[in-house]
């Protein structure tokens, strides 16, 4: 049961491809792999924090003001992420731009607080947060990897030492499929991946009657 709380977010209840939550930042930041990693880390941290506190305070928070309370808790964690990112990872902060403060209204986080953390124990909420956060991050990395490799012919990671963080892929770098790095490409990639997930899960359940 506990193990299921951790793994369901990655595949069976994948927040992006199956539940369809948090699509706006997904489409917005998935132009570079480094953005996906940064966004994913931010969301995991906020989700973990908000799930823990919502679960801890579930008996203290009055039912009629629970949504405002959740938003305050979530917004606090997002602001912490924003400040820390601005101070220590300025280039990541620049490229994520408005999507960092928008984590506040990311439906995955509010959705998990409302649908899971306020009914379950702290431990289960932590597992749920990690599962959902990892599911979100993996999906985001997948989309951005496809978009960046085909759309600009590069893979951008963190610069380390002499390595400037950008891997150039021959052929694709000089003749990239530019449409994939534009907004339309985000929707296309997203749609194909969602179709693939649907096909895979329907095949797992056996043929339809």
């Amino acid at each position: 049961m506990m193990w299921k709380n951790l793994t369901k977010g990655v595949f069976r209840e994948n927040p992006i491809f199956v539940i369809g939550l948090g699509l706006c930042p997904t489409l917005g930041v998935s132009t570079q792999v480094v953005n996906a990693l940064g966004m994913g880390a931010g969301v995991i941290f906020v989700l973990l924090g908000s799930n823990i506190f919502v679960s801890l305070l579930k008996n203290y928070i009055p039912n009629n003001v629970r949504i405002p309370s959740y938003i305050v808790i979530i917004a606090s964690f997002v602001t912490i992420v924003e400040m820390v990112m601005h101070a220590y990872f300025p280039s990541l902060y620049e490229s994520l731009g408005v999507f960092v403060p928008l984590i506040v209204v990311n439906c995955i986080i509010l959705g998990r607080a409302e649908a899971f953390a306020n009914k379950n124990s702290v431990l289960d909420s932590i597992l749920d947060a990690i599962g959902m956060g990892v599911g979100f991050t993996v999906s985001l990395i997948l989309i951005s990897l496809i978009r960046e490799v085909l759309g600009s012919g590069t893979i951008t990671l963190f610069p380390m030492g002499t390595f400037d963080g950008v891997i150039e892929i021959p052929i694709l770098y000089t003749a990239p499929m530019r449409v994939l790095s534009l907004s339309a490409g985000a929707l296309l990639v997203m749609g194909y991946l969602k179709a693939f997930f649907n096909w895979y899960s329907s095949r797992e359940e056996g043929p339809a009657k």
Partner: protein
Amino acid sequence: MKNMINIGSRLAIICAVSAIILAVVNSKTAPIIVLQQENAVKEALEQVSSGYTVGEQQTTDDPEINYIYPLYKDDSVVGYIMNLQSNGYGGPMKLLASFTTSGETLGVKLVEDSETPGLGKKAESNEYMTKFIGKGDSTPLPLKKSDLTMSEADSVSGASITFGGIAKALSAGSLYAKKLGGAK
């Protein structure tokens, strides 16, 4: 009524605790952020200064030029670094560019933009700006795509509006540098 006060005070306590936590984090990160922004400005100035000494920041009356820094060589003004305001495809852009007093472009850097990644964003690279450098005095700055050579035109295709915005701002800056000359 009593219930409402109870609910309100609980919400207030949650907010107060959040505010305190944020204040603590802010007190740790704010100085680092300020330091970093100062460094970023300094670094950008150094990149376009072409080895000349950068003077004090001055304001201008031109709406396209946010502020300028005179460049000195042996106590005489040889050029200016300008922070130029322009518009790209994704909204306002800011450029940091240096010109000699005769209007020649020495260096350009796109410091603030929201252009499309993979297209207009390419203007952030240093190679992109080479088509402007050394121009502006006797050779005019390219303003349209047709002013560019074949390979240069390739590098701006798909992002003509970004190119136009940068070119327009640079020619305004070059003119302004000529107008100021070596005075002051």
